[in-house]
């Protein structure tokens, strides 16, 4: 078994090397249940044999929809054991989105976590003729369903037991028949534009990058992670499946999405992947809770943070830390930093990756100063998935680090980042045209991101290439750059700026309900709903101040001085993935937003001071309604550029 070049082969290897070592855990009925690597292999083998008995063949697709549960991971592995391809999907996908993926991937079987997911499949059953059976994990509420079409995970495993009794080598033979060049998984990207694309990745793709990162960070079987990211996202597949199979560490599935924090505290994972958005939410909630704490605690908290910040700054500048500060830091560690880390579930964490979006310098410093080792990484599904990782001793808030081993990066003439690595994806499923436009013949992949290298060879990502525009006077307009600056304020959850082919820059803002709500409460401002709070004149003033600060910042930069935000409005509803305004990973879908809010955008530019709008909204159960609002538009002070005043 020297050449364990597929994940099922790696699973066999781990089941023999680390037979009694925990492989996967799930909190069920309030207690952590553990499967060892030997159990893992056994569960997978039984399920795979059952699938095979039901007619699953080499090359067939297995559609997987559900939250992170051990059985969902077993299903991924089982499909691969049989030479098939798992197609995990975002569990909050609505039936229409599922229909597209099932149809496009021609999935033969569906694994659905519970009644909610099964109902969605039944809803689209007519239009998905390829699906022959639905297998569920949780049987609650499913007693009266059509037993011929829908069956339980256990019943499939029972079928598998029979098949294995007749032919014990059934699955082993099938595992040995695959090799590293075969397709291991198809991941549908949430797609900021148009229909999602199925990214086809081979075992070699994912295995190579996973091994490089395991070596780089020294991950091994003593580590543990919490599996809480959507299984359809490459990062979860990479960490909770691929890296776990290579390093042999334990993957812990939380009890429910709401209990992730509490479960993290219990498990104390050593390796974390998080997004700037999650970090921001944590920090906001800590800050809000500290406001409610006693005076003494509040004083201690802020003093300790100041000390931590001073120490961090000194460290970054290479200056020695004073004896007093060293002492205070130790004290702070005992009384504030460690308890805080424990609250966040970071008490044992030695490595934290963050990616997906720019991270605010304040927030970055906050976490690093209390001793959480955050590193930024950059990548995409097509790279399976990482391209750059920040080296341990060179961590900054505004770069994404250096290319990892075996990865080459270059910038095209218009500033687009291109990369080439062993992780470069095989193709887009059934879409050769898109494959050709994304991947050159010699293996370079267009990321669509505009970036620059700094003097130390660190990559900096500015924006999507296609989003970088020009104002009418020819000045560069990088919307995401400005939006990120706005979003660094805790009161602003989301911002969309406009300016390409316009005379000036304007913005639409989504306030952060918890932060602004708390702010309003402290001032005794009453409000009944998000809409009411968003329209409050005091809130407008608050946001105006934030934008002014950004303008002052932008004015300092000659290239971007013309991008100062002149007018803004606060939207009456939160942007929502159910309405198609955000992707499932919560990225802006600019084209759709521009269409839906056209009247508002026109009003931003025609000088009017308010505008009425009605937008269609989709509720969680798929019904639709409309939300009306009369929205005020406000002008903001702009600053002269330093160059001009000089």
């Amino acid at each position, binding site marked *: 078994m020297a050449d364990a070049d597929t994940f099922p082969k790696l699973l066999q290897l781990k089941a023999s090397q680390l037979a009694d070592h925990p492989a996967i855990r799930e909190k069920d*009925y309030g207690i952590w249940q553990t499967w060892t690597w030997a159990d893992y292999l056994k569960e997978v083998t039984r399920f795979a044999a059952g699938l095979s008995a039901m007619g699953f063949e080499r090359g067939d697709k297995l559609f997987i929809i559900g939250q992170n549960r051990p059985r969902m991971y077993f299903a991924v592995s089982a499909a691969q054991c049989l030479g098939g391809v798992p197609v995990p999907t975002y569990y909050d996908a609505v039936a229409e989105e599922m229909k597209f993926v099932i149809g496009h991937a021609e999935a033969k079987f569906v694994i659905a976590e519970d009644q909610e997911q099964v109902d969605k499949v039944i809803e689209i059953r007519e239009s998905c003729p390829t699906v022959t059976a639905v297998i569920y994990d949780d049987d*609650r*509420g499913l007693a*009266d*369903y059509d037993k011929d079409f829908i069956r339980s995970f256990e019943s499939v495993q029972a079928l598998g037991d029979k098949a294995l009794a007749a032919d014990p080598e059934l699955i082993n033979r099938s595992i040995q028949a695959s090799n590293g060049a075969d397709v291991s998984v198809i991941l549908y990207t949430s797609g900021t534009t148009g229909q999602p694309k199925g990214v086809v990745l081979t075992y070699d793709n994912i295995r190579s990058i996973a091994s490089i990162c395991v070596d780089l960070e020294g991950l091994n079987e003593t580590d543990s992670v919490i599996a809480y990211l959507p299984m359809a996202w490459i990062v979860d597949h990479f960490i909770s499946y691929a890296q776990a199979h290579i390093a042999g560490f334990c993957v812990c599935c939380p*009890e429910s999405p709401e*209990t992730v924090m509490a479960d993290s505290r219990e498990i104390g994972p050593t390796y974390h992947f998080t997004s700037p958005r999650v970090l921001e939410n944590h920090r906001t909630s800590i800050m809000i809770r500290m406001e409610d704490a006693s005076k003494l605690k509040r004083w201690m908290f802020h003093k300790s943070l100041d000390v931590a910040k001073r120490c961090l700054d000194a460290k970054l500048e290479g200056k020695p830390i004073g004896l007093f500060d060293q002492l205070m830091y130790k004290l702070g560690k005992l009384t504030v930093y460690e308890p805080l880390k424990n609250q966040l579930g970071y008490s044992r964490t030695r490595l934290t990756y963050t990616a997906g979006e720019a991270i605010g310098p304040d927030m970055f410093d906050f976490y690093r100063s209390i001793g959480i080792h955050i590193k930024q990484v950059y990548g995409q599904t097509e790279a399976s998935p990482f391209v750059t990782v920040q080296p341990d001793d060179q961590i900054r808030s505004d770069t994404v680090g250096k290319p990892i081993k075996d990865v080459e990066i270059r910038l095209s003439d218009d500033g687009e980042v291109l990369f080439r690595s062993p992780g470069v994806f095989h193709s887009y499923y059934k879409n050769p045209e898109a494959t050709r436009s994304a991947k050159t013949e010699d293996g370079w992949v267009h990321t669509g991101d505009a970036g620059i290298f700094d003097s130390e060879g660190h990559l900096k990502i500015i924006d999507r290439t296609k989003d970088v525009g020009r104002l009418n006077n020819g000045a560069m307009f990088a919307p995401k750059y400005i939006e990120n600056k706005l979003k660094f304020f805790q009161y602003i959850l989301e911002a969309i700026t406009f300016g390409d082919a316009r005379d000036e820059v304007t913005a639409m803002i989504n306030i952060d309900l918890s932060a602004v709500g708390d702010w309003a409460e402290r001032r005794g401002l009453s409000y009944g709903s998000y809409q009411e709070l968003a329209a409050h004149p005091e809130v407008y003033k608050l946001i105006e101040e934030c934008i002014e600060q950004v303008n002052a910042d932008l004015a300092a930069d000659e290239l971007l001085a013309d991008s100062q935000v002149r007018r803004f409005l606060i939207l009456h509803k939160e942007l929502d993935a159910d309405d198609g305004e955000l992707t499932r990973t919560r990225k802006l879908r600019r084209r759709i937003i521009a269409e839906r809010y056209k009247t508002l955008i026109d009003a931003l530019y025609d000088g009017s001071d308010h505008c009425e709008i009605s937008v269609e909204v989709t509720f969680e*159960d798929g019904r639709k309604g409309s939300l009306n609002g009369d929205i005020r538009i406000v002008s903001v002070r702009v600053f002269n550029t330093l160059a001009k005043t000089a």
Partner: protein
Amino acid sequence: MATSELYLCAYSTLSQKQHDRDNQVMMPDSVVDDVLLSVKNISLSFGGVKALENISFDIRKGEIRAIIGPNGAGKSSMLNVINGFYHPQDGEVWFKGIRRNNLKPHQIARQGISRTFQNIALFKGMTTLDNLMTGRITRMNTNMFWQAIWYGRAERQEIEHRERIEQIIDFLKIQSIRKTPVGRLPYGLQKRVELGRALAADADLLLLDEPMAGMNIEEKEDMCRYVLDVNEQFGTTIALIEHDMGVVMDIADRVVVLDYGRKIGDGVPDEIRNNQTVIDAYLGVSHD
């Protein structure tokens, strides 16, 4: 069934129920084997006020029975009679085929009837878990001494009870609030915890007093789903009082209608919907 679109979640269960319902209508009334509880000629008055007047109906095993009626019709009084909180001046209550004497509420709870209240009656300062545990009290039979030193049977029993509670927590999807004091929970969740406590008693008959009052539409949908699932999964018979007609017509197998302490209708939802007396009572025709 226009309203049933609202309850997508319950849809397939509903069509099954419809089917069962059609069968039930065919059954002769003489079939008494499947009757879990019946009240016969109940009259209850407080001083000169007649709260209930000569009410008779039955609740069959495994069904969802709704009691509806305008404000002050005597619905809650009826539930209070069933669980022994009030003792009627006249009439009989038969439970599991045995005529019941005037028992105390806790004795009745032990017989297998549990309930929730219109205005939540949880222990606000206790956690969800502890509140649910109180639902098991009727089933705990070790004394305080053994429970305090937590040894032997007391320990075994508590673990068994905790296991059952964990199943309920999982069933109601309230894992995230397991250790939260219920006073800090939003209203909809408190209602769910209360349902959990009633479930914890493993009762044969569950009385729900306005389980969806004051909820928004999403919370109502969730609650409907839980009520249907409890009925289906645990086979618990449910009697509920509810004001939302959409909900009642959708999830109930049979409905009894009260007005001014009298029974004015009894039957499957379709019958009730077309019953002129019921319509009058709801629209407020003047009573001579």
